[in-house]
């Protein structure tokens, strides 16, 4: 059994954390069957604080992220995201590291006979096919939005990831701008996420919300994490991230800018949320996501305020 990060990163193959994504793709012959089992790495399933910052080990289960009192109190937008995604059984087993690096959920990817750039094909089968769950910020390649709910939430927290126990990068660096249509993230083969680093907590109003058709346990059509730092009734700082709309999670700086300095009211939320879809160029079947994006951001802001 592998017990150190170094051992793990020296091997060639594919990491196996909780296995909730890996085992599914194994059945579809979409993994490197040389699994590198991270289960034996000790200390990577802890949540710790140091120098004001919070360190979440990459092997921490989503259930534990969602339940940890420290995360719930100080990073509600992350705790709620971890507790609101997938199903109770999946959250028990799936890890935060695996969530960030999971593969796309596009139907064309897992289908044995359809084309998908993520499995090495030259073109995206969904583009001229079935894509109602696709992106609204289309960049011409793969039409599937990035699957990671936690990646999105971490954008809103301006989190960093620690790679191989050493190298520290902003979360957005592991995804890039989404122009690489063959990859779900940009980590190198021998790069392992060891920790997630959250900045020191601030007094904030934060939440996570997803729009779905059924009551629960459904992949988000559009999802959002919003954090508001409010003084009196004026918004001092705003951090808004959205998922389900682009090849990578997105921050919405123009929405944030429109909120800062405003009072935290339904009207200013509605006005700012209008900007969420600026620059959207939806696909033929994702036009509905443009208003849904705006409305989901508005809804999340209202819920953040509580």
């Amino acid at each position, binding site marked *: 059994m592998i017990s150190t990060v170094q051992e793990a990163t020296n091997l060639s193959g594919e990491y196996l954390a909780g296995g909730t994504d890996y085992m*599914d793709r194994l059945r579809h012959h979409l993994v490197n069957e040389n699994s590198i089992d991270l*289960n034996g790495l000790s200390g990577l399933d802890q949540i710790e604080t140091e120098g004001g910052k919070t360190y979440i080990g990459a092997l921490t289960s989503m259930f534990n992220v969602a339940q940890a009192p420290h995360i719930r109190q100080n990073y509600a937008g992350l705790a709620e995201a971890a507790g609101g995604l997938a199903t109770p*059984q999946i959250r*028990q*087993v799936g890890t935060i590291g695996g969530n960030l690096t999971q593969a796309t959920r596009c139907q064309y990817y897992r*289908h044995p006979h359809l084309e998908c750039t993520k499995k090495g094909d030259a073109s995206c089968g969904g583009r*001229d096919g079935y894509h109602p769950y696709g992106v609204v910020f289309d960049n011409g390649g793969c039409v599937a939005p990035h699957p990671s709910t936690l990646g999105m939430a971490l954008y809103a927290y301006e989190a960093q990831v620690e790679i191989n126990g050493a190298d520290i990068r902003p979360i957005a660096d592991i995804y890039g701008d989404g122009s690489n249509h063959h990859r779900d993230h940009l980590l190198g083969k021998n790069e392992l996420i060891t920790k997630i680093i959250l900045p020191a907590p601030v007094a904030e109003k934060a939440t996570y919300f997803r729009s779905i058709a059924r009551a*629960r346990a459904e992949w988000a059509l559009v999802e959002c994490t919003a954090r508001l730092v409010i003084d009196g009734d004026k918004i001092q700082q705003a951090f808004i991230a959205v998922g389900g709309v682009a090849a990578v999670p997105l921050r919405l700086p123009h929405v944030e800018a429109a909120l800062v300095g405003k009072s935290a009211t339904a009207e200013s939320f509605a006005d700012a949320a209008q900007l969420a879809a600026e620059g959207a160029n939806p696909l033929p079947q994702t036009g509905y996501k443009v208003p*849904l994006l705006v409305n989901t951001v508005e809804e999340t802001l209202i819920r953040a305020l509580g």
Partner: protein
Amino acid sequence: MKTTINQKEYEFDLQPNAAAVDVIRDQAGLTGTKFVCGAGACGACTVLVEGNPMCSCLLPASRLDGKRVTTIEGHQTAEGELHPVQKAFMAHDGLQCGYCTPGFVNAGIAFYETWTKANGNTKPSRDTIAAALAGNLCRCGAYQGIYAALQAACEGAFDNVPTSEVVSHRVEAIEKVTGRAKYTTDQVVAGMGYAKVVRSIYPFAKVKSIDFSKAEAVAGVWTTLDVLDDDERTVRFVGTPVAAVAAVDAKTAEHAASLIEIEYEVYDAVVSFKQSRAATEANAEKSFREKAKGGLPVPSKWNGNTRSYRLSLTSNKGFRAGRTMRRARASGDDFLIDKNFYAGSHAHTPLEPHGALAHWQGDKLTLYASTQRIQQLSDSAKKRYGLSDSQISIICDHVGGGFGAKGNDYPEIWIAIDLAKKSQKPIRLILDRGEVIAYSGHREETELEVGILSNQNADFKAMGMEVYNNGGHAIDGNAATIAATFYPAWPQLVNDHAVVTHQPPAKAFRGPGGINGAFALESVVDEMAYKLDIDPLELRRKWDTHPQDQQLFDYLEEVPAWQVRDRVKVDKGRYKRGVGLAMGHWVHLYMPGAEVRVTAGQDGLSVESGIQDIGQGSRTLLGTALAEAFGMSVDDPLIKIKTGRETDLASPQTGGSRVSSSVYPTAQDAARQVQAQIASALSTKQGLQNVSHGPDGVIHSGGTVSWRDAISQLDGEVQSVATRGRDAKGIGLTGMLDLDGTGLYMGLGPSTSAQITEVEVDTRLGKVRVLRTWSAVAAGRIFLEEAARSQMYGGVTMGIGYALYEDRQIDPATGHTVTLNLEDCRIPGIGDMPEMEVVFMPEGFDHVTGGGVGIGEVSMVPVAASIANAVYHATGWRPTRLPIRPSDVIEGVR
């Protein structure tokens, strides 16, 4: 690796990357744990690892190392007492087919433990339960019972109830909550091998050659087979079985299958509905006319790729209706409503996959198969393999759902038998979820054009309905035909058009044609009520004067939500609530030739039929028929029920709601005949005088001998086989529907239902939530109330899925099904359940033997329509497409 499962130590040799479910099911033999989606979406494979619920299908087996694991088989105490949650599931009927039950019980137990620890014996809210069970899906829709079960268990209602005193509503409930029930997927025969089917990846192509050499060279491969069943060696939809392989294990079979090389000559296919509907005679795909099977043998004609009836069976005063409608259109009549609707394709996706295990011993075949037609399958197998009655036995004790998807002798059954024959080994062939969704059953996609004409007096003047059915490579669809039975007295001209495509063939699916037809027709009737400014219920009362339906209206009129509704109500603000009403009709079918055998002997009473229990409770129904006749309870140890096996008795298949009315009265007849025999045997033996018999036993001049005593005094056995027989009124459909060999009859008078639904529409996020439903059903006498109620809940649940979520999609360029798993085929979960109320109206079926008919289909017919009407009432926007997705609401409600 060492693991403790259910307090027993195991040591396993692990294959690399093995999943926990394989180790648990195949190595430990604990088949209570089910494998359904293999993708974390359904929770059927849930086990407890150190008390925590996990999906064993996605859990690496190595994670069990040194751990304490509990599966469904492991909740009994040493004394055999069940966990309170298991008892509660039995008592509250938290299960139907039972295939999801092990997963639900395990997740439920994990929840119960956490809840009671934190809150003591208090009642959790439905929402709390929904959050905890969000990872489990039930296709039968047993959610109402599951809510009730968990609430009762958490309150401590079962803590002190011994298992033996739990009153359950199905005789096999205990087997289902303990994982002992063996489904086809769980059957094991020593030395069995595993099979895999290779399917065409093209929608339309000629198979020029199949090269098996690479596959056959793989170690562990037993045999390969060419299984293409087409005289022109042509595949006509993606997924057509072409070849098959059997091997020592599933992995080898799958690998070998990937090495079978098939050379195709690819033809231009007609994949999409639109493309096929647009075809003219000049560019028609002529092969459809010869090769597409199915449809009623009613005079019809082809135009392009579309086959239409010359005159639909159910049109009434069709010529007049057509003329009236044409004139109204020409004059732009104010009281004319013409509207087009669309209803998407909908996969049955029963949780137990289709599959079979075939075992030849010499020239004798033992077949385990997941089927809705044991007896018919037996007949076809005998014919196909030249077997005599004694050379075949079929075992199908439990079926994990069917809904019509297992209502034919699907090709994989023959493939398993053929592979077993060729390899001379037992062969198991179980389909994967993608195969179940893509190729093994779905409701057709339909476009419905409906027009209805009234006048200022609110008279029903005429109705016209043209329905285009994309049944894939089959002649399919009868929505218009059924819709015309809703208001049968009025002039109507309807037609069903079968549009053939190179897609997998559709199959009859719970209320086939009824549901989509009701959506279109009941939507325009609703719209007409608004136009006429009449209460939609009042309008239906006026148009449908049948006393049977009036009793439905009487009940629904009292529904509080209906009474307080505004005529045209559009709430201001974001959340809009509304109520909608719709009717549903279903033909009533039965099998006159159905036979049931009752036997009495010293060791008890048995009732036998070749029917199958797919979750509707037919086993319990049959047992109850016998038990009631003898004044006993179905749980009495004297009562034995023999179903789920191939027999010498003509038995109905499950489908079209025909089982109860075929076998229940028949079992009672047989029971009465046996009672007469017992009485006469007893009178001879004991020299009794003036012998007669009644429900309590044998009556003679000296008193009454209870049935129990009478039976115990029998020397040997007495036995009788009763036959259902025909009702005085009704139409025979033998041969016409050709659904089974023994005659299917359509009885007089439809089963009918009506439903009011209350919804809440979140206009900001496009979400429709069903809050409450009230369903009234007229199907005469209900033989088994609890099972019928559960079936009603199931029908409403499935209707909600069809109305709001489920969407089976085909990639237009390639003909491949895109939505291959349960994550994309979004069936309703427990959190989507409204509060449901159901009432049964017993009147109206006195002319039917037994006094009642089935409800499986009619339960689902009005659901989607009543939801759509409620959405209209709430928002002023009328949905014209199913499912009503957030995208539609967002675009519709502006």
